[in-house]
């Protein structure tokens, strides 16, 4: 799998090299890009971008334009970087963002809809700052990522790089398809922060897309993030349990997970079918196919019949 990822990176890098070797192709021509809120921004090769939401930062990195990012929110930590943070995504500071002198602010519809953020978008625009609202990151699965990628490709005038990344998604998806488990496991996504706290990620959002892509069935009986009693967990009796990497660590690894109320009494607990995935899955980003491939391979080995 690592080798495969390396080939994507090589491919992306090759495309970028081609583009940069031919400056006439990627020359700075103004692009008008329409956000999901129907507000269009016209930009010419933005040089100072405040990129809000983890996936926006990741996608810009994948397009090779990380040098333009001058600010992000607390989630923009991958790939590891030293970009200044404007704070929590649910309470964005208008003046703090303006102080970074951005020529473009790029955020996502789900984040901008929270708390006082709609007012912040209006204030930014009132102060002459361009704001591009990308589609929400928690719906639409990989197609949502593709849409955001296309918009960012237009913003930066690098449609070729965006298309190459898009094709790399298809390559990984083909590998995911080739690695489906023989029997679809019924899965519960345990969103745990510690041994005494275990909510379940429901059937909406990134975790669900991951489960379905990897060949599983989400057994959560609700859509959003809720708590589930130990008895309900036993009744559902999932074949597999997924945690976030940090969740698995917080509960004390696979052994710790088995000690959580109800887990040991499920098929997943009895067969030690406990898996962990990257902490960022709640926002659907460009690594979704890679995450799915890793999980699909594990499930293919574990659920043969």
């Amino acid at each position, binding site marked *: 799998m690592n080798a495969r990822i390396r080939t994507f990176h090589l491919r992306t890098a090759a495309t970028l090299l081609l583009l940069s070797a031919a400056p006439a192709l990627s020359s700075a021509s103004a692009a008008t890009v329409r956000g999901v809120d129907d507000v269009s921004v016209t930009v010419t090769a933005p040089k100072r971008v405040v990129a809000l939401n983890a996936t926006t930062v990741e996608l810009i990195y994948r397009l090779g334009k990380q040098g333009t990012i001058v600010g992000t929110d607390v989630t923009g930590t991958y790939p590891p970087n030293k970009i200044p943070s404007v704070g929590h995504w*649910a309470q964005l*500071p208008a003046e*703090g963002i303006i102080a970074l002198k951005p020529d473009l602010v790029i955020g996502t519809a789900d984040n901008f809809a929270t708390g*006082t953020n709609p*007012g*912040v978008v209006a*204030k930014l625009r009132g102060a*002459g700052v361009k704001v591009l609202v990308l589609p929400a990151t928690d719906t639409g699965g990989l197609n949502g990522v593709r849409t955001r990628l296309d918009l960012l490709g237009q913003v930066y005038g690098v449609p070729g790089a965006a298309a190459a990344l898009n094709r790399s998604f298809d390559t990984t998806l083909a590998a995911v398809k080739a690695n489906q488990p023989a029997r679809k496991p019924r899965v519960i996504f345990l969103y745990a922060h510690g041994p005494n706290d275990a909510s379940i990620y429901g059937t909406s959002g990134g975790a669900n897309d991951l489960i379905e892509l990897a060949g599983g069935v989400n057994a959560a009986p609700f859509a959003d993030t809720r708590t589930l009693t130990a008895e309900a967990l036993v009744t559902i009796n999932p074949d597999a349990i997924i945690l976030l990497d940090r969740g698995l660590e917080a509960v004390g690894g696979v052994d710790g997970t088995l000690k959580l109320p109800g887990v040991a009494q499920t098929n997943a607990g009895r067969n030690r079918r406990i898996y962990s995935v990257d902490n960022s899955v709640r926002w659907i980003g460009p690594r979704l196919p890679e995450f799915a491939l890793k999980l699909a391979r594990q499930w293919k080995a574990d659920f043969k019949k």
Partner: protein
Amino acid sequence: MTVLSTQAAAPSRQRRRAALTLGVLPLALLGAVVLAVGSGAVAISPAQVLSILYSPLGLPPLEAFDTQQAAVLSGIRLPRVVLGALVGAGLAVAGAAMQGLFRNPLADPGLLGLSSGASLAAAASVVLGFTALGPYSLPVAAFTGSLLCTVLISVLAQSRGRVEVSTMLLAGIAVNALCGAGTGLMTFLATDEQLRTITFWSLGTLGGATWPGVLSAAPLILLGALLLPLLGRALNALTIGEHGAASLGVPVGAVKWVTITLIALSVGAGVAVSGTIGFVGLVVPHLLRLLTGPDHRTLLPASALAGATLLVLADLLARTVVTPAELPIGIITALIGAPFFLHLLRARRGQERP
């Protein structure tokens, strides 16, 4: 009781200090406002601030500024500073009036269910998706919730047309618990995004300040900040008890209703636009009582001025200590207010020891 114990102290010295305080506080507020308007994540020099402020007059600027600086100053920073001053004044004057009315140094507008009612209504509006009034949906819900809660507590505390202050306190505690449970239920039902909205609202912020928001809350807050000080003499009389006050010719029942109504309107409007900001209503009157003595005629206007100054400064900290990010202001007021309050407590206990 506390009020009475300090009243015996040399009155003439206290009157001088009161006059001095009332003279200095407006200057302090002005200083705080100037400082707050001139500081922030975006650099705008004092000369530019002045130039932007008088630019509608068409005079040549002292120092050139760009349109973005003007937009930040007039569209983001000014409404925020004005809202901070208003909310701070409203909270502090309401706190002082509550402590006078209840003759209890621990009284706080929260006892009238203003914060808990607002929290419940705000959480419910977020979770149940009340968006009929656009950006005003949450503030209007919060304001309505705080008023309903206060009305409920007042009605419960009423017997034969009189408000029983001690019953009111107990009813307040019970209704607050009920609202807490309701808010808990809403939190349970909330999605992750809704939960964030509720959490950050309850930490308090002036970051959502817009001119329409400020202008809609201003009349209600000013009503309290300007009219409550007029009740100073009546609240002074109440310190000797309701019967005593009545025998001095104070219309006790009317004073109670007017005070409660003014507090509810000004604090309710403040909470609606800025979330719950703790400790200002409790600490500011105590601090001023040490400076000016217990006379409500000084205490009430002084509290309004000091509360405004304090919140403007607290918000300045909130938006400058971690730039380009900002802290919720409720964290700052409690972080500074609580240790300071403890210090006051310890210091006063030291004085009272024979």
